């Protein structure tokens, strides 16, 4: 009966979401304070009921209730408990419920932590979020009900896809959705601002911490996905330009542009229309991603069972939210204040350039992702765009960004001085050259690409340190959180760039035929294949190789690596579980291929051995970016009590030289 209860709680959540979408908005136009005040309890109510539905579905998984179709498709009696919990979001229906739950968290958080917002504005923000929640709950109830029963009840379930039976996959979707769905918050702020008509830029200040946190989660979610692909797909790559990766990458790119353009709009009141457009686009791209993943229009390793009705539904949502928002934008944008002029060598220009490059990169990825559809629709023949297109163009677009990152925060608002920028840049370049020399000696990058990457990384790291030094000297009362956060994030980009270029230029990959007892030398390490044995896992049988690794010319064993080849009991699918010995300066990676001798299958294997220099820096950089963004989002200036417009205006002209 619990499943039926889950069904009922979802319907109740939908009703509350509809009330949230209507009542506070109605109140905001009639000046009815009672109705506007309803936005808070209604928000909590939506969270409560969706949360309850989620708990009920989870309990069905834990108690192995195979009479639920969704449980039967995504679980199995042999599945360990922690994977039974993550299996809740292992398929389309449950992951959509998770999506709704995350949205409800954001809605409740906005309601709880927005005391500084004028009531009318909060009412409108909550109403827009209520509309989004209602749309997604309708989607769940009408096309993707996770509580559907299966008659007759099967004896056992079909099992969770083995690719998803992995710790990385337990946390990847929730974190990614926090970012993906979180883009609904700046969207709601932008719509509320447009509805308000009388456009002030105060909404931008309120919007910034939310946007930053959502963006931080999105960054973390994408990095986790890439980490998972690295060790679980058994292929050693960390980014594939797969349509579904692109689906999450596009909102990230636009989100990156948005967090920067919000800074300009808050500080200098320029680019207001542009910022609104970015906020609308970021969420629209989240919806577009949902469409791409769940409609079956594009094929991908991530694709859920495709169902065109779902596609139509998401397309309708996209039409309603994005189409409606852009129409509202066309109608209302002219009420914005006229833009003031910006100087050529100003921080505004720098941030504008950031926006141009990130918007162009988004357009490039969008075009590449949709190109197969476009070519097909226009009868240009059926073509798919491979990684070479993305890799080349993306690198080209990001080179100027990397060059400009350290200069941006150095440049003054309004009107900078070219000779001053030049002097600063020269000093930073000298310092970066020094660091490059040092890093070059330490890291020993192989090849031109490696050196360029390390140079770019040194430039970014020096730029972040330089910025902090300048401000420590200039400022009384120490650095602010947002300043440390920004420097940390930009430093993280440097770490990331070094990681990418080192691994791309210096990785060694060998595919070998190895018999038990053989020793292979790859890079600076010897791999001694000492044994091969069969192992029984909870729901799989595995062949496990045991390799002792030592530095060439030394007998000290630095790692024992045990790659596995697993056959899962239900469904019989085979998974490669690579063994990875992680390190700050290199990862060693051993994976078992195929048994090569049929007569003696356990003895002779094809073995793949990789040395991946500095691959951890890719995710290390991402972690720094996430922490930096969260630190900036937690800055005190966003937590001030309600600030009047006049105060803000005064503060703006006074602090115009120092802050972003």
């Amino acid at each position, binding site marked *: 009966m619990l499943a039926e209860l889950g069904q009922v709680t979802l319907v109740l959540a939908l009703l509350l979401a509809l009330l949230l979408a209507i009542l506070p908005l109605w109140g905001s136009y009639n000046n009815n304070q009672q109705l506007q005040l309803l936005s808070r309890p209604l928000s909590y109510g939506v969270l409560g009921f969706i949360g309850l539905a989620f708990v009920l579905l989870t309990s069905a998984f834990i108690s192995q209730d195979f009479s639920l179709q969704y449980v039967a498709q995504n679980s199995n009696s042999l599945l360990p408990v922690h994977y039974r919990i993550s299996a809740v979001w292992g398929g389309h229906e449950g992951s959509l419920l998770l999506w709704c739950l995350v949205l409800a968290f954001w809605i409740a958080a906005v309601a709880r932590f927005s005391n500084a917002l004028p009531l009318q504005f909060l009412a409108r923000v909550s109403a827009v979020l209520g509309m989004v929640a209602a749309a997604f709950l309708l989607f769940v109830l009408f096309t993707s009900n996770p509580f559907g029963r299966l008659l007759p009840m099967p004896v056992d379930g079909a099992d969770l896809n083995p690719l998803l039976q992995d710790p990385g996959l337990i946390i990847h979707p929730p974190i990614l959705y926090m970012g993906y769905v979180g883009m609904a918050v700046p969207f709601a702020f932008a719509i509320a601002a447009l509805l308000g008509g009388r456009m002030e830029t105060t909404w931008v200040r309120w919007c910034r911490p939310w946007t930053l946190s959502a963006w931080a989660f999105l960054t973390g979610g994408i990095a986790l996905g890439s980490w998972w692909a690295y060790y679980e797909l058994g292929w050693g790559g960390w980014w*594939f330009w797969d349509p579904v990766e692109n689906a999450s990458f596009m909102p990230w790119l636009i989100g990156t542009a948005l967090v920067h353009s919000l800074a300009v709009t808050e500080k200098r009141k320029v680019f207001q229309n542009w910022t609104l457009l970015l906020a609308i686009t970021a969420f629209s791209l989240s919806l577009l991603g949902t469409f791409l993943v769940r409609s079956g229009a594009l*094929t991908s390793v991530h694709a859920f069972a495709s169902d065109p009705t779902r596609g*139509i539904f998401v397309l309708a949502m996209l039409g309603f939210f994005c189409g409606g928002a852009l129409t509202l934008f066309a109608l209302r944008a002219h009420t914005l204040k006229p833009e003031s002029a910006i100087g050529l060598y100003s921080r505004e220009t720098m941030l504008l350039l950031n926006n141009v490059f990130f918007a162009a990169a988004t357009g490039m990825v969008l075009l590449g992702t*949709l190109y197969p559809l476009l070519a097909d629709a226009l009868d240009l023949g059926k073509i798919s765009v491979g990684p070479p297109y993305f890799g080349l163009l993306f690198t080209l677009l990001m080179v100027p960004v990397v060059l400009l990152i350290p200069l941006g925060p150095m440049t003054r608002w309004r009107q900078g001085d070219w000779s001053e920028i030049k002097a600063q840049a020269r000093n930073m370049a000298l310092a970066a050259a020094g660091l490059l020399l040092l890093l070059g000696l330490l890291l020993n990058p192989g090849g031109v690409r490696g050196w360029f990457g390390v140079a770019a990384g040194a430039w970014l790291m020096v730029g972040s340190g330089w910025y902090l030094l300048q401000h420590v000297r200039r400022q009384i009362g120490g650095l602010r959180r947002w300043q440390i956060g920004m420097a940390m994030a930009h430093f993280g980009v440097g770490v990331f760039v070094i990681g990418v270029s080192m691994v791309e230029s210096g990785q060694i990959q060998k595919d070998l035929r190895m018999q038990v007892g053989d020793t292979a030398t790859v890079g600076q390490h010897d791999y001694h294949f000492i044994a091969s044995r069969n192992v029984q896992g909870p729901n799989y049988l595995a062949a496990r190789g045991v390799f002792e690794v030592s530095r060439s010319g030394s007998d000290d064993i630095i790692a024992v690596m045990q790659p596995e080849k697993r056959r899962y009991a239900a469904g019989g699918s085979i998974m490669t579980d690579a063994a990875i010995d992680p390190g700050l300066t290199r990862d060693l990676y051993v994976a078992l291929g195929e048994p090569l001798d049929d007569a003696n299958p356990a003895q002779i294997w094809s073995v793949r051995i990789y040395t991946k220099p500095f691959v951890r820096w890719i995710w290390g950089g991402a972690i720094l970016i996430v922490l930096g963004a969260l630190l900036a989002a937690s800055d005190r200036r966003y937590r001030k009590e309600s600030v009047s417009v006049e105060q803000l205006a005064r503060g703006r002209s006074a602090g115009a030289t120092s802050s972003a």
Partner: protein
Amino acid sequence: MLKRLLPVMVFLALCVLLFAGLRMADDKDLIPSPLINKPAPAYNLPRLDADGMLGHADMLGQAYLLNVWASWCPGCRVEHEQITRIADSGVLPVIGLNYKDAEADAQRWLNHFGNPYSAIIVDLNGKTGIDFGVYGAPETFLIDADGVVRYKQVGILDQRTWETEMLPLIQSLPDQRQPQPAL
């Protein structure tokens, strides 16, 4: 006003495209390809696994699967297990069409995951892929003894599709001769 309407108009164009994409996704299920029950496009391509060429004409007289794959395609890596199972079952030969791939990468992929194919042909610039209407890897075509396309699978071929769709179709083919010694 016109300038501000631009975003809406771009968005509407995008919606039309997405809707068309959805219709085509529908078609992928209903009428998988305009090639169904038509002769497969002629091809003659160099082999990856041996010297020489392999063409359309060499394959006449036996039914076979043509599996489009590439080392850059994560879906192919997922599908590899199923393709191996089909090839091992000996129901019919599986020909690999290595699609827009670097030879070294393709060889490494095969060494690592194993080579299930009876033969592999190389479509470096994707021209044969265009003739076949390939959306993207992986895709699998069932071609009968007369060289006629009988079935097309877009995306990963799973055990269920193999058992419920393709296998009955293969068994119903009128004149499935034994594989020729050429392979």
